[in-house]
Every structure is written in structure tokens, then in C-alpha cells.
């Protein structure tokens, strides 16, 4: 790197002193330096455009909503800085007199161009009103109105069909009433239904939104969807009686008042697993219904002769379990390891003033809370060094998706840069910076070093709001996965082995030892295994729900 390049890069980084800026200015008279400057700027630009998770829409809308209603006018109002006058592109309207500007007497006057625009807008509004009334009265269906549903995230091959035209799905993308969403095998789509409900469409699934108007004919299509085949995981916020979310499959109808569940549909049968709350399942065969409570499942089978039955979910996987925390019986700020594996690795609530114990269970970490073992996590470290595998599992509800640090959820470590393993959330740098809304795992290996970098991360924005089942697994061959609600959302390799794990490191939840990497939210259950659970075992633990033994 020569001096010219150094000067250019310092200028790009905003760190070029005035004296050296003069030197750079002189150098820029030379064509070769100008070319170098341009090339380095382009590389810088390409790197900055890699920024992840960029979304300012919430912040911008908060600003707009705080503005007075008449703030939107010529764009050259008194409270816009004078310099902003140069900001707007030249348009016929902009170059004409500003519309709507008041004269000294307070009388609003409009230019001819402005009057034309307003007249045209009025014509459009009237035409739209006529069209809307006509549509309402004639009962037209299936036009691409806004349904309120949006695709938030897609992975792999996901396609959307609207008005008979199939297209590759975009994210984000608004879904029109009547839209069909198809996720190919090994693909994934996360969508919101516009009412706060969030659904994950697994690979090999096909889902359709209703095309018909709602019963009142005014408020768009009814909430819900049809799952033709495949599996969805859904989180539906609580609703009032009479405002249920209705879902249909070829074999069943499902009525939801607010819960978390998994629905798997084939042509002849539908299985419903309820994680939280309760859901009513109606079999199309005979229109019989059962209410399926949490930690249970039922199957609606078109070929069955016997009545539908509600069955208890399979018990949680216990093979390889080393430590389990359910936060059910805090005893003098001691969270007990209830795994039954000796010796118990109990956790002390180091900051009792920073936690709450919600009546619904779990522990709420609300202000730089730290739970830590008094002794090293020796039984975990020893088992993992021996097996080369590990699983960290947590049922949690983040208080906010914009956490940073990354925020520590579960860690076996000795400070921010020395760890055996960490399960965390969020990006780096300032709160709200890029990279938020995701989960990550850092694992020390003989290759990845003491800090376990680079981490395995889910995509920015992949962390769902509300109750979440989060699992990090690492197999002896280095295969590492992060599951969200039993779906693999990140996969990669952590090469090397675990023989360098330090047996003196302690276990902590909610923060880092000696540092500020606090995580905000509620922990409902945390489990550590001395091996990598497979996908089926992760699914079993997900279906068993967050409430252990209650």
C-alpha cells in the first residue's frame, strides 16, 4: 500500500487531516491518482452496500406520524431548511409556483398546473369510488386487492401465483387475496397475515389465501388460509371471540383464538400439534370437533372410522441431557438444574433486582440480568470434549428483536472474547444497528480459536417475535445448525474438535461474565445436551412445548 492509497482510504474513512487533504487534492491532478481514487471508492461502495438488515421504515413512519397533518404540501415549507429547496427534482409542478402557498392575506392560491393536478386527482378519486361501489355491489372476487398478508422472508425456491401468473417470490412482498404460495423441498417462507399472525411455510408445502370478501363485505378477505399440503408453524396473537382465524386443509378445518401450533396436511389427513393455547380441530369427514390443548395433538383422518382423539405430545428427548432449567421454583434466587444428572449445575441469580418471575412461568430478564453457575460447567465441558457434540436449547420470548452485543442467551465462557460456546442474539455495534433480529452461535474449536469466530448466524430479521424455540446443535463432524421453531434456519461447519474447551469456564444465562452483553426477554426453559440432537429430536422437544412437567 503506497502513500497515495493511504491518503485516499483515510479520506474515505473520514480520517484525513486538513494538511493531508491538501496533499491529496494536489495529487488528484494526476490521472493515475484519479483512477486509483475512483477504483477504491467503488470498492468501498460495493462493501457498504453489503450491509445487512437495513430497514428504516419504522423510524421514518414514526417521524411522519408525529408531523402535523398539513405537513405534506409543497415540500418548501418554512420548517424545511432553506437548503432543502435544492433537494427536489425539477418537475413541471416544482418549477411552477408552489401549490397551496398562502399569500400575505392568508388566501390559498394555486397555480394552473396545481389546479390541473388537483382536478385529475379528484377525477381519480371519484372513479375509484364508483369502481369500489360497483365491485362491492356486483360481488366481484379475486381481484388483486391488498390482503394485508406479506412475505417477510424466503429461502430456496418459493413461488407465488397471483391471477394465474406464477412468479418467483420476493421478500418482502405483499400477497394479494387468492394468492398461492408454494415452497419447494428444502425451501422456506415466513409470512405475516397482516393481523400479527406469523406463519412459517415449510419445504414441500402449498398454501392459498382466501380470494372471497369477508362476510361484512368491507374489510377485505376473511383472515386465514388454506393449507393444501405440507406443514406450517404458526403463531397467532390472541383474538376476541368471534374473530377467530380460520384455516382449512383437505381433511379438516381449524379455528384459532390465539396460540402457537404446527399444522401438517396431506390429502387424506391433517395433524395438529398445539404448543401453546388451545385450537379447535374439525374433521371434514363427519364435522366432529375436538379442542386440542397445549402439549397435545390430534389427527383428522378422512379414512378413519373411530372418533378423533386428543393425545399427549411425546415426552422431551432425554438422551444426552446434561442440564435443564425450567425456572419453576426459584428458591432464594437459585435456579435449580432439574436434569437429574449429577452433579447438579444450579444457577445463582446474580442480579435479583433485574429479574421478575411472571405468573405464567419462566424468568423475565429485564435489566442487565445475569444468572451464573457458582462452579465451572465441568460436567458439560467434559462430556462435550469427549463427544465432540453439543446442543443448547432455549424456549424464550425476546422483549425486543433489536438486541446487540451479540446479547448472550446461554454461554459457557470467561468474558466477551473467551468462550467454549455461546448462543446469542442480535448484531454487533450500537443497539439497532445492522444485523439485528437474528440468532447466532459461537463455538470454540481447534480451528476457530478461543472466541469461536466466525459465528453461525441466522439471516438478519429471521428472529420471530414472541415465544420461540431456539436450538443450536454441533455434531462431531463439525456440522452445526440453528433451529427456530424446529426449522433449520442456519447451517454450516465449525471445523476442528472441542478438545481445547476450557474446563474452568462457568455457565451463564442472560449476559456475559464481566461485560455488558445483556439479553432482554423471558426464558421459559433452557437445556444443554452433550451431543447434537437430530431434527426429529428437536421437533419432539418443540412439540412438547415450553412448559416442562406442568
Amino acid at each position: 500500500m503506497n502513500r497515495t492509497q493511504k491518503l485516499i482510504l483515510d479520506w474515505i474513512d473520514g480520517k484525513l487531516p486538513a494538511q493531508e487533504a491538501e496533499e491529496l487534492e494536489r495529487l488528484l491532478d494526476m490521472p493515475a491518482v484519479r483512477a486509483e481514487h475512483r477504483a477504491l471508492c467503488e470498492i468501498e461502495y460495493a462493501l457498504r452496500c453489503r450491509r445487512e438488515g437495513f430497514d428504516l421504515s419504522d423510524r421514518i413512519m414514526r417521524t411522519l406520524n408525529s408531523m402535523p397533518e398539513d405537513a405534506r404540501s409543497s415540500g418548501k415549507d418554512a420548517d424545511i431548511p432553506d437548503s432543502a429547496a435544492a433537494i427536489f427534482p425539477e418537475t413541471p409542478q416544482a418549477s411552477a409556483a408552489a401549490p397551496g402557498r398562502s399569500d400575505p392575506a392568508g388566501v390559498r392560491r394555486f397555480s394552473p398546473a396545481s389546479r390541473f393536478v388537483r382536478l385529475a386527482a379528484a377525477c381519480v378519486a371519484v372513479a375509484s369510488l364508483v369502481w369500489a361501489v360497483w365491485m362491492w355491489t356486483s360481488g366481484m372476487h379475486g381481484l388483486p386487492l391488498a390482503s394485508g398478508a406479506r412475505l417477510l422472508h424466503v429461502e430456496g425456491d418459493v413461488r407465488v401465483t397471483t391471477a394465474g401468473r406464477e412468479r418467483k417470490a420476493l421478500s418482502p412482498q405483499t400477497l394479494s387475496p387468492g394468492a398461492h404460495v408454494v415452497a419447494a423441498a428444502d425451501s422456506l417462507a415466513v409470512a405475516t397475515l397482516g393481523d400479527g399472525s406469523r406463519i412459517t411455510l415449510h419445504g414441500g408445502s402449498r398454501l392459498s389465501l382466501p380470494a372471497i370478501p369477508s362476510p361484512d363485505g368491507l374489510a377485505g378477505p376473511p383472515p386465514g388460509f388454506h393449507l393444501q399440503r405440507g406443514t406450517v408453524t404458526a403463531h397467532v396473537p390472541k383474538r376476541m371471540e368471534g374473530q377467530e382465524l380460520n384455516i382449512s386443509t383437505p381433511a379438516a378445518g381449524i379455528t384459532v383464538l390465539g396460540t402457537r401450533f404446527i399444522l401438517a396436511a396431506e390429502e387424506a389427513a391433517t395433524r395438529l400439534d398445539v404448543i401453546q393455547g388451545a385450537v379447535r380441530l374439525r374433521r371434514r369427514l363427519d364435522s366432529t370437533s375436538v379442542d386440542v390443548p397445549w402439549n397435545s395433538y390430534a389427527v383428522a383422518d378422512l379414512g378413519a372410522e373411530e372418533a378423533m382423539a386428543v393425545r399427549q405430545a411425546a415426552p422431551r428427548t432425554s438422551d444426552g441431557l446434561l442440564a435443564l432449567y425450567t425456572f419453576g421454583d426459584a428458591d432464594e434466587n437459585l435456579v435449580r438444574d432439574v436434569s437429574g444428572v449429577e452433579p447438579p449445575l444450579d444457577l445463582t441469580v446474580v442480579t435479583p433486582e433485574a429479574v421478575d418471575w411472571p405468573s405464567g412461568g419462566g424468568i423475565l430478564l429485564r435489566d442487565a440480568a445475569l444468572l451464573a453457575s457458582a462452579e465451572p460447567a465441568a460436567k458439560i465441558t467434559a462430556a462435550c470434549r469427549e463427544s465432540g457434540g453439543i446442543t443448547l436449547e432455549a424456549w424464550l420470548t425476546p422483549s425486543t428483536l433489536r438486541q446487540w452485543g451479540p446479547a448472550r442467551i446461554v454461554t459457557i465462557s470467561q468474558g466477551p472474547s473467551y468462550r467454549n460456546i455461546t448462543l446469542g442474539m442480535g448484531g454487533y455495534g450500537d443497539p439497532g444497528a445492522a444485523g439485528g433480529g437474528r440468532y447466532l452461535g459461537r463455538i470454540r474449536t481447534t480451528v476457530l480459536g478461543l472466541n469461536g469466530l466466525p459465528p453461525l448466524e441466522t439471516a438478519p430479521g429471521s428472529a420471530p417475535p414472541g415465544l420461540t424455540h431456539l436450538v443450536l446443535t454441533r455434531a462431531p463432524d463439525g456440522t452445526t445448525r440453528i433451529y427456530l421453531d424446529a426449522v433449520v434456519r442456519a447451517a454450516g461447519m465449525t471445523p476442528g474438535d472441542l478438545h481445547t474447551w476450557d474446563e474452568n469456564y462457568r455457565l451463564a444465562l442472560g449476559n456475559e461474565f464481566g461485560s455488558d452483553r445483556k439479553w432482554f426477554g423471558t426464558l421459559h426453559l433452557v437445556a444443554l445436551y452433550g451431543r447434537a440432537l437430530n431434527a426429529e429430536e428437536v421437533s419432539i422437544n418443540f412439540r412438547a412445548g415450553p412448559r416442562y412437567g406442568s
Partner: protein
Amino acid sequence: MDVPMLADTKPSSANAHESGEATDEALVSAVRAGRTGEFAELVRRYQSDVMRIVAALLYDRSATDDLVHDVFVHAYRGLETFDAGRDFGPWVRTIARNAVREHLRRAVRYRKRLADYGDVLAAGAGDDLLAGETMERLQRLLDGCLRRMPERSAAAVKLHYLGGLDTAAVAVELGTSPGAIRNLLCRTRVALRHCMERELATQ
């Protein structure tokens, strides 16, 4: 009866064409009619374009965010001057380029010549670089070259540019000093520049 107003307009943007969602014109009409919330969709559609223009010129990430924010607030307030017959995207991108020029004009630390270069880049960001093909080619080259960088260099770039860590935080992550990270990032960018030049020469 507001919803049909959004749909009863010929789509104009590529996204709207593909998905049958509300067009830019329909969204602009809805906002002008008082449905401010529809502006959020316009923000979501064009914030990346605006960010790219702004990011080309401003080093500081929070300043970048602030300027992107201001561009959309200006666009909202000036919506009455928007010619409904034109595309919203080029309009808001022009606002962004002008806003960047204004920002640089006011930034006294930039000397005139350097600010002029900023102008050139801001214009380029809106035209050549942003125009899909050039940007894609640039990113492809960058991908290939990043893979050839030493592991530590690539890690520093990832933490700094993708993760948003400042050099001090990258230093903590990689167990070295901020000065060493600054030098490493400088050396890596120069190495990327030479690598990309070689790649271009062989294509």
C-alpha cells in the same frame, strides 16, 4: 372503500408487476388522499436504493441512516410536487443525490475538490452503479476476491462492513489493537482493488 383505490391502477414498478401488489402511483395517490400509512410501503421499496446512494458518500453509519431518513421525510413533504405521471423511484433517488450534495456542501471538512468527487460518485451511484448490471458485476468480482483474502482479512471486512462493528470493536473480536485493524482494513481494500483489476483484465 380505500383498498380498491390502490389496486385500480396500472402497475408501474417491476415488483408490482410481479406480485400484483399496489403500484407506486396508487400508493402515492393513497398518501395524498390522507392515508399516510401507505408511505411505509414506498419506503420499503426504495430505501435500499436511497441507502446505496447515501452510503457511497458518508462514512459514518448513523449519519447515513439520518440522511436516508431525511430523504424520505423530504419526499413525503414534497409529495405534492411529484408528477404522478412519472416513476417514483427516479424521483426519490434524485432527491437522495441532491440531499447528499447538500450534505457535502455543508460539511466543511470536505474540501472543494473532494466534494466535487463526491458529486461524481453520488451521480454514479444513482446511474451507472445502481443500474443493476454494473452493481451485480461489481459484487460478483468482490465475492470472488473476498474468498481469496486471508481468513483474518476477510473476518475483519465481514465484522466491519456487514456486522457494523467499528474498528475498536473489531479489534476486540479479533484480539488486536484498533490501529492494527485500521491498517488491516486498508491493506485488504487495496488487495481487493488489485484482485478485482486482475479479474477484469482476464475477463
